[in-house]
């Protein structure tokens, strides 16, 4: 058996040998493994620990911090313990339905091979949802790209490749892309962020868990999907170190190859297996093969049920002969899942995949195949060519590995500065520049590549409201809304408040469509945990996520931590907590879109203006060194949201749109732009003078990103709306809709057509 004589080597030699083998394990970790095993670990064992103890799999730096997040709540069916979390959607015809939600990152793979990396990001998250016994119904993609100006071909190629990859995979598997956001910032030049969210529908009585059931000793482990090859070998470790663009040879092993057409068949075959299992009332385990491949999945599936496992690697369906056992064990070939099944149904499940759905005809040597068993003994054992190549205590492999690392709290933001904004640029110039800014302009050129309506259950596709809305149960009025948000401009200034704003914006967007927020997921994209300053940003971010979620009465049910997002020179990305909020609509007919609906309506601002431009697009445009990020009064926000939801349910909101990137004038302009297709002519807006609705300056009022929501209320509903608002002081009338296609304010008036041109064009050349 090939092994590494850890005990016989000094630290320097051991490090060199580990580097030569491509192992990211530290020297102290290597010695800890050898000590626990009491012998020289085999190479297969080392690669297994390398994957399983990577940051990506073990969360060794962040797990203790994540325990601060709220994870329980009235709508939580399953919190963050398995491949995905589940939130209660509602009841229909006596059945309780849950929405399965998972949130992941595929940042490093997407930087190295943009198309394949982004595509397999979708592929992986879809499996996380599928294995909970759910029908996959939607995906979403928040993206962070570098500077994509025409003189930056690398960054442009990455951005295009990512979007192409998402479209190619998502469209081919027939799952609508419902939500997402996109930012461009030079600090993502060397490390883009490609996060992905997937949603599934499941009856709460039919959830399948990512563990071998209690009575599952001797359950058969049935591998399903693509034949194992050398692609993706080293993926987990690769995701847990900083990228070096020059290391193309070492990077290539971590390249994962997508096959959405095979995935499409696997999904449908799995749905067929689900119905067979339900009909027979059989409890099983099912898990996605992600980081750590067959080893990671089988070890976690069995360990979570309190079992060990024994596998024979010779039974694994492979795409090429003579693969090394560590490659078969740990390689991250895509499109694979693992069942834990009682013996009596294994043949039937194999038949469904291999014959009824013909997996071997779809891709080379794809199939369902028995590869081992769950065992009562608490060992994790792998055999290859008759030899025991791995034999370790399973709790040592999958159990607690922790790093306690020093964190340096972020420096407090500098004081807010006073700006003499009036003399710098004209309002007209600033408005057009803001609308054309890459963080503000129309995202349609990007997301039009994605199928948003496939399967016919999308109610509001991306771009037509602040959140995507989908009614997943045929014949039911139940629907969910999804928004995914996070602002790297704030992350650069104040990591803690960036996390609070990510939660606030995601929740606000869901409320803006009239949906009740019911739960959150997060993806925490940060730099190296071994840099105290960068780790301090993660600590501050989690504090912000916890505080804001508690204030809004929401829990996190799923999430992901992506660290080491930095270039090889150690320069980290801006702190980038990205939050998804799921909302519930009990009557889908009550959802609210952002397009203005009629002339003569009143426009109300629900929210408070602030004199704080830190993190705003205006500050970026004017190069203002302002670090005064808007504060969030969550008590007031909660009251506003309750009021808005009551108003939506009463049918009083004709349209609604939140105030975020670019500020209030952008919000109003986008409400007007959005009525183009339906009305065939823009509805204009006359904005009242500041005195009636703001006590801060003109630029802070019009371009500040202090949150809030603008709503359109028909003239006939104004009394009811204001009565419902009652004593809520942060509800103020700010203008009216007018028949002229202009946006008017004080002595200025802009043609909606002109504004639309500035807003709609910037991304067209990048995503033709």
């Amino acid at each position, binding site marked *: 058996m090939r092994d590494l004589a850890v005990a016989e080597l000094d630290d320097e030699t051991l490090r060199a040998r580990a580097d030569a083998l491509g192992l990211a394990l530290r020297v102290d970790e290597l010695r800890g493994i050898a000590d626990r095993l009491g012998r020289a670990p085999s190479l297969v064992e080392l690669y297994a620990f390398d994957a399983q103890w990577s940051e990506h799999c073990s969360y060794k730096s962040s797990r203790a911090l994540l325990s601060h997040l709220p994870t329980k709540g009235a709508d939580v069916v399953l919190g963050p313990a398995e491949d995905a979390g589940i939130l209660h959607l509602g009841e229909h015809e006596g059945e309780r339905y849950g929405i399965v939600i998972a949130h992941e990152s595929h940042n490093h793979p997407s930087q*190295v*091979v943009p198309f*394949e990396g982004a595509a397999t990001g979708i592929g992986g998250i879809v499996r996380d949802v599928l294995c909970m016994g759910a029908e996959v119904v939607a995906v979403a993609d928040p993206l962070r790209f570098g500077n994509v100006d025409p003189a930056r*071909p*690398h960054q442009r*190629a*990455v951005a295009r*490749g990512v979007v192409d990859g998402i479209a190619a995979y998502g469209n081919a598997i027939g799952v609508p892309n419902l939500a997402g956001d996109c930012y461009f910032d030079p600090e993502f030049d060397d490390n883009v962020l490609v996060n992905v969210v997937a949603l599934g529908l499941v009856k709460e009585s039919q959830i399948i868990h990512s563990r071998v059931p209690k009575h599952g000793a001797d359950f058969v482990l049935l591998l399903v999907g693509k034949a194992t*090859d050398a*692609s993706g070998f080293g993926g987990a470790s690769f995701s847990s170190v900083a990228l070096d663009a020059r290391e*193309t040879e070492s*990077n*290539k092993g971590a*390249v994962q*190859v*997508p*096959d959405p*057409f095979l995935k499409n068949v696997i999904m449908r075959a799995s749905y067929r297996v689900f119905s067979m299992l339900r009909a027979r009332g059989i409890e099983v385990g099912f898990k996605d093969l992600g980081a750590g491949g067959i080893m990671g999945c089988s070890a976690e599936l069995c360990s979570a049920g309190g079992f060990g496992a024994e596998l024979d690697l010779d039974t694994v369906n492979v*795409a090429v002969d003579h693969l090394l056992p560590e490659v078969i064990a740990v390689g991250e070939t895509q499109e694979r899942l693992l069942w834990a099944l009682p013996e009596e149904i294994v043949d039937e499940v194999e038949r469904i995949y291999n014959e009824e759905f013909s997996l071997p*005809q779809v*891709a*080379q040597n794809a199939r369902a195949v028995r590869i081992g068993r769950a065992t009562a003994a608490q060992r994790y054992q792998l055999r290859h060519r008759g030899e025991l190549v791995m034999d370790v205590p399973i709790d040592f492999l999958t159990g607690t590995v922790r790093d306690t690392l020093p964190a340096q709290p972020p420096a407090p933001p500098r004081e807010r500065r006073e700006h003499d904004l009036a003399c710098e640029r004209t309002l007209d110039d600033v408005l057009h520049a803001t609308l054309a800014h890459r963080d503000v302009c129309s995202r349609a050129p990007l997301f039009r590549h994605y199928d948003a309506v496939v399967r016919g259950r999308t109610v509001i596709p991306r771009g037509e409201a602040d959140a995507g809305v989908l009614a997943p149960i045929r014949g039911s009025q139940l629907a969910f809304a999804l928004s995914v948000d996070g602002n790297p401009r704030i992350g650069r200034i104040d990591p803690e408040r960036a996390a609070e704003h990510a939660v606030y914006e995601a929740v606000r967007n869901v409320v803006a469509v009239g949906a009740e927020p019911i739960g959150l997921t997060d993806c925490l994209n940060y730099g190296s945990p071994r840099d105290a300053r960068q780790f301090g940003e993660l600590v501050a971010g989690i504090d912000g996520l916890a505080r804001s979620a508690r204030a809004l009465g929401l829990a996190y049910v799923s999430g992901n931590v992506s660290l080491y997002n930095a270039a090889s020179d150690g320069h980290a990305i801006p702190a980038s907590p990205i939050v998804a909020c799921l909302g519930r609509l009990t009557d889908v007919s009550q959802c609210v879109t952002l397009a203005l609906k009629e002339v003569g309506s009143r426009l109300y601002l629900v929210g408070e203006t602030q004199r704080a431009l830190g993190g705003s697009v205006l500050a970026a445009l004017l190069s203002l060194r302002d670090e005064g990020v808007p504060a969030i009064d969550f008590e007031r926000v909660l009251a506003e949201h309750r009021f808005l939801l009551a108003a939506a349910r009463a049918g009083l909101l004709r349209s609604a749109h939140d105030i975020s990137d670019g500020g209030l004038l952008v919000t109003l302009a986008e409400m007007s732009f959005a009525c183009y297709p339906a009305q065939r002519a823009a509805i204009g807006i006359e904005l009242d003078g500041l005195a009636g609705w703001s006590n801060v300056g003109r630029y802070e009022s019009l371009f500040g990103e202090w949150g809030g929501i603008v709503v359109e209320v028909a003239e006939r509903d104004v009394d009811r709306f204001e009565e419902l608002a009652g004593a809520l002081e942060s509800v103020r009338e700010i203008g009216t809709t007018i028949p002229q296609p202009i946006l008017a304010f004080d002595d200025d008036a802009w043609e909606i057509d002109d504004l639309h041109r500035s807003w709609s064009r910037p991304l067209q050349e990048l995503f033709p």
Partner: protein
Amino acid sequence: MGERAFAVALKIPDNEAYTAMRALQRLGIAVAHVRRADVLVFNGDEGNETLRERIERDETLFNPNKHRLERLASMQPRAGEVWIEMLDAPRSAPMRRLVSWRLFGGADEPLGGDELDAACVRLLCNPAIERAIR
């Protein structure tokens, strides 16, 4: 210096080549292995190394994490190989982009002319928009 050709092929598994192989087999063509590559044909005075560097710098053509680059010795497809070119591609362009399909039989021998013709007609080349170069 005239025309030079480079092949950009995947060094990761090629699903498209596998799918093409399965489709050809179902069409009754005795193919056992298919390789696919982009063929870049340059017409100009630049040296081979300059052209190679140019390709390697252009991420729309080449990504070292997933591609390998090879200078082709001949401007003609090899035995068992066909190049497919779009009909509307300008022949005088400084760079032409074609797709190479190399088909092998059971003993890893290049496929013969008749079978290669059949593969072109039945799957690899749509004569309404493409032409096959043999």
